[in-house]
């Protein structure tokens, strides 16, 4: 037992969270199962959206953990166990990917031989967009992520038990290469799983857009979890408004990056006005979807931007929580907006939400959060032998 092992009060708090998450998750999954027998096509669509969002937290958690190993910074030391616990759900997400695999025929039109036979563009893309290669790629992505997770998490926990070296140096090294692999695998994975829903369309910034979205969500999760733990020792004695301020600035930075990436894509495609590109935005700004698009602009950018400008909001747990909760919810809607309009399949764009969309989010998200809190509870809340821990604590007490 180390100095930062959760105290009974923290354990009880996390247990209540776990229990609630598990109940929601089981109910959500049960509803999904029922929905599968009623409307399997809708089930796959709803599941894909939920999968992409929660998978984004797991993979983004891994990326932010690695980022902090490379750059250092007190914020990351305080957030380490939170991002590691999120990343620890990657094996779960590999299981949750299976419905996407089973639903491929229903989700992706390029899997239909008759559609491809009539479509010269899909024929040219066939060396990439074919079922076998899709499986192989998914296996490679998950192989890389799980391997990185094993190293990053394993060494971090070994550092807790045995002391900083050699793990600290190893973590720095593997994280630098790991970030490179993260960006590449994320780009191709998002091409496979989301972009190819509309197989004619392409955008070179897509992977980076997903990266920005994951950054927003992961920092929202960090701030929500950390402020939740602030009531308890030892977090209450260590994490100060200085750390929250740093995390808030990073949240703010990712909100701006997210907006920047999305605006860049929008302006370039709008301005080019090419028949092969604009349908993507036409499908997302008509038939009711424009409300979501404008909502994203305001609630995912303008309002959080304006509120997070304030130093006071970033430093005050009670004030920052509503903003990051909004961002978290808006990112779910953003992923929905990226994926769901593709299902109109050439028909006129028409906004609709199915009850399965909610059920899938609750099912996947409930189980995700249950496992997240379980992992958070099972290990010290701060990395005990982290070389920068003392400096990070010190950082919070001055300024």
């Amino acid at each position, binding site marked *: 037992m180390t*100095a930062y092992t959760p*105290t009974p009060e923290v354990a009880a708090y996390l247990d209540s969270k776990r229990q609630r998450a598990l109940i929601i998750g089981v109910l959500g999954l049960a509803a999904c199962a029922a929905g599968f027998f009623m409307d399997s096509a809708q089930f796959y669509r709803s599941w894909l959206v939920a999968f992409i969002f929660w998978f984004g937290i797991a993979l983004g958690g891994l990326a932010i953990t690695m980022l902090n190993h490379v750059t250092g910074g007190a914020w990351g030391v305080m957030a380490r166990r939170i991002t590691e616990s999120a990343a620890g759900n990657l094996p779960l997400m590999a299981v949750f990917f299976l419905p996407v695999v089973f639903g491929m025929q229903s989700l992706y039109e390029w899997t239909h031989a008759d559609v491809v036979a009539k479509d010269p*563009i*899909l024929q*040219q*893309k066939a060396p*990439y967009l074919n079922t076998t290669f899709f499986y192989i790629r998914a296996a490679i992505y998950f192989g890389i992520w799980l391997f990185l997770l094993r190293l990053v998490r394993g060494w971090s926990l070994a550092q807790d038990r045995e*002391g*900083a*070296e050699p793990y*600290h140096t190893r973590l720095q090294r593997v994280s*630098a290469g790991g970030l*490179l692999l993260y*960006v*590449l695998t994320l*780009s191709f994975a998002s*091409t496979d799983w989301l972009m190819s829903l509309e197989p004619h369309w*392409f*955008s*070179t*910034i*897509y*992977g*980076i857009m997903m990266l920005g979205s994951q950054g927003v969500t992961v920092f929202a999760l960090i701030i929500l979890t950390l402020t939740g733990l602030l009531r308890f*020792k*030892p977090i209450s*004695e*260590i994490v100060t408004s200085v750390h929250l301020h740093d995390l808030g600035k990073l949240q703010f930075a990712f909100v701006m990056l997210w907006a*920047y*990436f999305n605006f*860049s*894509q929008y*302006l*370039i*495609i709008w*301005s*080019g*006005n*090419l028949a*092969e590109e604009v349908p993507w935005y036409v499908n997302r700004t008509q038939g009711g979807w424009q409300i979501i698009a404008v909502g994203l602009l305001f609630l995912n950018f303008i309002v959080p931007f304006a509120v997070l400008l304030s130093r006071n909001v970033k430093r005050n747990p009670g004030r920052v929580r509503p903003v990051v909760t909004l961002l978290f919810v808006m990112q779910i809607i953003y992923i929905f907006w990226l994926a769901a309009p593709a299902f109109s399949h050439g028909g006129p764009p028409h906004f609709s939400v199915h009850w399965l969309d909610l059920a899938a989010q609750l099912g996947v998200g409930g189980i995700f959060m249950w496992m997240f809190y379980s992992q958070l509870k099972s290990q010290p809340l701060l990395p005990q*032998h*982290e*070389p*920068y*821990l*003392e*400096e990070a*604590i*010190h950082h919070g*007490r001055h300024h």
Partner: protein
Amino acid sequence: MELTQPHSHNPASEIARQKRAEVVGGGHSFGSMTDKIAAIVLTSKTPIGWFAGFGLAFTLMALGLGSIGALLFLGTGVWGVNVPVGWGFAIINFVWWIGIGHAGTLISAILLLLRQQWRMSISRFAEAMTLFAVACALLFPILHTGRPWLAAYWLLPYPNTMALMPQFRSPLLWDVFAVSTYGTVSLLFWYVGLIPDFGNLRDKAKGFARYIYGFLSLGWRGSAIHWHRYETASLLLAGLATPLVLSVHTVVSFDFSVSVIPGWHATIFPPYFVAGAIYSGFAMVLTIAIPLRKFYGLEDFITMRHLQNMAKVMLATGLIVAYGYAMEAFYGWYSANQYERYMIWNRMTGPYWWAYAALIFCNGLMPQTLWFKKLRSNVSFLFFMSIIVNIGMWLERFVIVVTSLHRDFLPSSWGMYVPTVFDWALFVGTIGLFSTLLFLFIRFLPMIAIFEMRTILPATKEPSPEGTAVQS
């Protein structure tokens, strides 16, 4: 349960301390450091090497002036641009110079907000470099108008009796605003940062120089209220300059990407141009810093830690740039659009294959050497790498501009672009202009912010280990 106390000497924190090399070496005191930096400016003996360097730079600048003379006398026909490559060296060099400027803004603004102390010794000349690079960049679009004395009349929107306005949907007009804002903010930032040092030089200088520095110091007396206002102004300017790091090169990337030309119309352009700008900017900072610290003996201020950090920034941004090339190539194929596919194929194997191959060598392969600490700590190698990156980033703009244009949609409108001797002379001339300004800056202004460096001397932070009093 016990909490670790700050500054207890546990082995884990010792590792952290060892990994943080000092940003100032040589055991300097306030006085010795001020004298060392100020002496470069206040000496009456200009080193002979300075005259040699300045002479060479001035000669190159004169070559550029000659080329401008020919351009204005004979017209833009002296350049190699023609249909289909209507944008040649002018835009390539414009983007190259603008990109180089970005390191200065990043170092001064973003690293200031991130409280990165290692920025302090390199920020002053990096900001100067930004200003001079923007000046070089601006020459190209202005000269490209053919009649530069009318450029303001064409470029700036103003109400006039002819009811003529520039095209507000054109990114070229956005460029006018983006670059002029950038130039203004950079100038202000640089000048405001210089004021306390001007005050310092005024107090030390003798004769006529005293009046000049006194005039420039705007009445600086170093009172508490002056410092308070100075700090506020710096933070505000840093906040204003931060978006500019992203926005300027984003707008420059729009010059290409909002068109429908395959090779230009790519959504990855904004972030990838910004990364490329920072990449080339840090390369130029290294190109300048490495000889400077050697000739003026500034190794205590521009330490190995600075060089290594800059090498790391180059590696990170270089990887983003390489990612951009990879995504362009992949989606060029994935698009299944015959023009996109042909463009990327032509880039790799067409008549300009050598430029693309050299680009991948300079920006894709060579930066990978910076993964190794041994090479990052080798000053000569870093200088070599900085030159490679400067060349690589110039080639990137050459490849983007020329290979995208020279094969038009119809084979009947295909052509080749060959820069003329006037193109080259003007390009070399801007390098001369840049170096000339830099030599003047080094001679007459303190190239390292003296007062800022004082704040990071070990003496400022805590009592020295022996418990001796802080030196003044």
